[in-house]
């Protein structure tokens, strides 16, 4: 049952094949069994079983919501009241949030059972989950490899059957890249679709939450619950949230798919390229037409991102000063010492690197050369996409330049690590909805296919993904070591 989709699990819960308590206990057992994957920072055994019991009672009483009894995990970047929220950092090793993130409260209201908080790169800064203070996460497909990041714990937990689905956040690819590496489905909706209230900020103008699931249908179901206006987040959009599940089977006949030729340039691993090219036939069979589009400024997306994201992060992370909460250095001699040592000791290297880069690019004399210029590039990239969407309905390309790499392989080479997000970052800079779905294998490792939609048009990429999954079984493949179990 651990690999059933949420749609199937709901069906089973309704029919009484198993209860939420049974399902939840099953996942809790599996989490213990696969503790070496290190997917979770906190496992909420007691409160999850309690919530599962309440879910079963609610269902028996005829009060079931859209997700009642479904055990999900939250990336440890979402604040959960009464439960430790660490953002993968030592800085917040002892932090209990006094409120729930909007994402958390909406999923709970829909009936979901929170089973735990997943591991992640520290403050979501990383593409391998190796910057976590709580240790690396292992890829269930090959435990010598990384799961991707920063939502690596969520991706690995879904892939290993340690929860029904998980939440993630995506600032430069942090939902899509680990989804690709772990062979699951993940969507980053339009910037502003989902409230950021209670989601610990990395780069505010780029951060966006989204669901990580086994199927596009599950993603549609969860996104419908998570999305929508929130008076607590001024950047959250007031636009109506359509019923994504209902539109999943809207025929793809005549859908115009654009191939980003710029994504197939040098750097894309041959096996991955082959997987993506082959997937085109499935879409053609479904009635879509394929054409090439160019995004001329896409090559500047990484440099622009690595100015804007650290700049925003440098301010967003200033609140971790050892004064009011979180890590505080021992016996500070004065105020400056308190600030300096709390931050030096509490943050990991990658976080400190980005804070320093961000502070530098915003400083007097450098602002125009870096920050302002990066914002101009961001505008050009947005314009590129709008020009493309004048010709096609959705864009298609790879999610990552190659499948999951080995643990430690890129930790010494920041640029190689940053290049992991080369195909995903533009979607964040432009604020467009984008998702990754499993599309095949290269050297026995999952390869992700990326679909990018126009603003607020999550429905089109979800429908394309869903119908692709009706024709293929890549999303149903499970890691061999996991498949042996029941």
């Amino acid at each position, binding site marked *: 049952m651990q690999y059933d989709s949420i749609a199937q699990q709901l069906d089973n819960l309704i029919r009484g094949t198993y209860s939420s308590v049974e399902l939840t206990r099953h996942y809790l057992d599996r989490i213990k069994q696969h503790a070496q994957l290190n997917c979770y920072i906190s496992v909420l055994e007691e409160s999850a079983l309690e919530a599962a019991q309440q879910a079963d009672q609610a269902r028996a009483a005829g009060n079931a919501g859209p997700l009642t009894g479904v055990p999900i995990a939250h990336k440890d970047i*979402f*604040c959960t009241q009464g439960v430790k*929220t660490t*953002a993968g950092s030592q800085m*917040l090793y002892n*932090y209990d*949030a*006094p*409120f729930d*993130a909007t994402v958390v409260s909406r999923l709970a209201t829909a009936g979901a059972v929170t089973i735990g908080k997943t591991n992640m790169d520290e403050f979501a800064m990383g593409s391998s989950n190796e910057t976590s203070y709580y240790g690396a996460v292992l890829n269930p497909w090959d435990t010598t490899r990384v799961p991707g990041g920063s939502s690596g714990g969520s991706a690995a937990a879904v892939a290993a059957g340690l929860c029904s689905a998980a939440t993630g956040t995506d600032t430069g690819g942090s939902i899509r890249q680990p989804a690709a590496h772990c062979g699951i489905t993940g969507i980053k909706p339009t910037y502003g679709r989902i409230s*950021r*209230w*209670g*989601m*610990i*900020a990395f*780069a*505010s*103008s780029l951060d966006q939450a989204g669901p990580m699931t086994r199927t596009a249908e599950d993603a549609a179901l969860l996104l419908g619950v998570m999305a929508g206006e929130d*008076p*607590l*987040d*001024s*950047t959250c959009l007031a636009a109506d949230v359509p019923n994504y599940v209902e539109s999943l089977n809207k025929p793809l006949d005549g859908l115009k798919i654009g191939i980003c030729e710029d994504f197939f340039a040098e750097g894309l691993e041959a096996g991955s390229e082959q997987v993506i090219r082959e997937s085109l036939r499935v879409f053609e069979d479904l009635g879509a037409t394929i054409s090439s589009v160019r995004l001329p400024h896409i090559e500047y997306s990484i440099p622009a991102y690595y100015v804007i994201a650290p*700049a*925003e992060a*440098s*301010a967003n*992370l*200033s*609140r*971790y*000063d050892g*004064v*009011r*909460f979180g890590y505080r250095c021992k016996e500070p001699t004065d*105020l400056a010492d308190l*600030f300096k040592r709390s931050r030096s000791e509490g943050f990991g290297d990658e976080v400190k690197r980005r804070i320093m880069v961000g*502070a530098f690019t*915003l*400083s*007097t004399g450098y*602002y125009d050369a870096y*920050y302002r210029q990066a914002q101009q590039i961001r505008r050009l990239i947005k314009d590129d996409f709008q020009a493309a969407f004048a010709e096609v309905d959705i864009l298609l390309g790879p999610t990552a330049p190659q499948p999951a790499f080995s643990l430690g392989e890129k930790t010494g080479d920041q640029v190689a690590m940053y290049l992991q997000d080369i195909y995903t970052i533009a979607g964040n800079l432009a604020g467009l909805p984008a998702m990754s779905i499993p599309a095949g294998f290269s050297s026995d490792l999952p390869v992700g296919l990326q679909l990018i939609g126009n603003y607020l048009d999550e429905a089109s990429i979800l429908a394309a993904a869903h119908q692709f999954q009706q024709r293929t079984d890549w999303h149903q493949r499970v890691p061999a070591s996991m498949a042996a179990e029941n």
Partner: protein
Amino acid sequence: MEWETVIGLEIHVQLRTQSKIFSGSSIAFGAAPNIQASAVDLGLPGVLPVVNQAVYPKAIAFGLGIGADISLVSAFDRKNYFYPDLPKGYQITQMDKPIVLGGSVEIPLDDGSVKTIQITRAHLEEDAGKSLHEEFIDSTGIDLNRAGTPLLEIVSEPDMRSAKEVVSYARYIHQLVTYLGVSDGNMAEGSLRCDANVSLRPVGSSELGTRTETKNVNSFRFLERAINFEVVRQKEVLESGGRVEQETRLYDPDRDETRPMRSKETAMDYRYFPEPDLLPIVIDEAFIAEVKKNMPELPREKAERFQSDYELSNVDAKVLASEPMLADYFETVAATCSDPKLAANWVRVELLGRLNKDSIETSDIPVSSEQFGLLLLRINDQTISGKIAKDVLDALWKTEADSVDDYIDANNLKQVSDSGALEPLIDKIIADNPKQVEQYREGKTKVLGFFVGQVMKETSGKANPKQVNELVRKKLS
């Protein structure tokens, strides 16, 4: 060398709202520490600011009040620095696109003239919390009740040339924001705080000298003293061949001096950048019109009306309209005595003179506007002379009396206009001064004043001067 003082002022005005600028916490004064500090005010992980819409009409009303441009699109920025009472490690303010741009005010000066002070900008921002150093031994307490209090920072051009002008300007702004309901104006509770940028330059020079910024002065008296101290200090530095350091200073009222707060070595780079958690503020003309509709008459509008309705001179009108309370006072006086020009003259000269001399605020005028008007009516209906009226005003001022008519009656001050009573007295004075009579008849008509003066002296000023004049002239011819 002769030095010219150049001063620009930044005034932080606390806006009169129910709650904070980015959270729903109360801003009521005097709560126990940290009672009015929510997750947003504490800058906890995952919180986001949401703008309190009530701040917009306040900022717009101020902008309209100084004849400024209201930005149809303005935006918030982050100002980054570390301080324990700044929970997020940055202050949300407006740097590049303030909500109010330009504008000016005309302030009354002590010599009775008015001076135009240009205003550069006014922008919205949040206040920081407070560090409490005195209550704790070997440690500092932090009270975040004030963190997130909405402020309007009003930045002037360096148009002022003396501490006195600065105080006039600050008073003007204080009155204006209180009158417009932008702020409660409670200085004791920190609703208005000033940063003074002071520099000196040789008289005749058009270049600005190096300035110091004296921060957080929260009374007009301290403002004047802080600036005067700074002017003397800078003058001494310059005249001894030194250079003024560009620095931030604090005024210590106990020692009546300013001291450096931060040295140049640790000069701040605030790394401003656009606040990504908030959308730009977009205001339409209809909203501005709505704010305008609900605003009381502005000083500049009042001045125009005073000129057209009361036929006052330009300067009279501007001075009287400059302060809303003074303008209201004047209008009551004018209505009571039905002589706006006489009212304007007396309010400007007699009232303002006394206020200035005794350092009394317009809000604390000891004589009611009705009694002041009645006093002028008694001049016009010839009950008393102008000279006696000044004595009556003095008595009322010292609160020795509270009714003009009662005081006149009680002290027997009524003007003697009865020729039956005056004629014998005039006859006697003429008889007693034959030399002067002869002079007059020889053509030295100036001597007439001598006789009138004698009559006034004998009647203790109560005689109607105009009537005495006529009677003396008649009897001498």
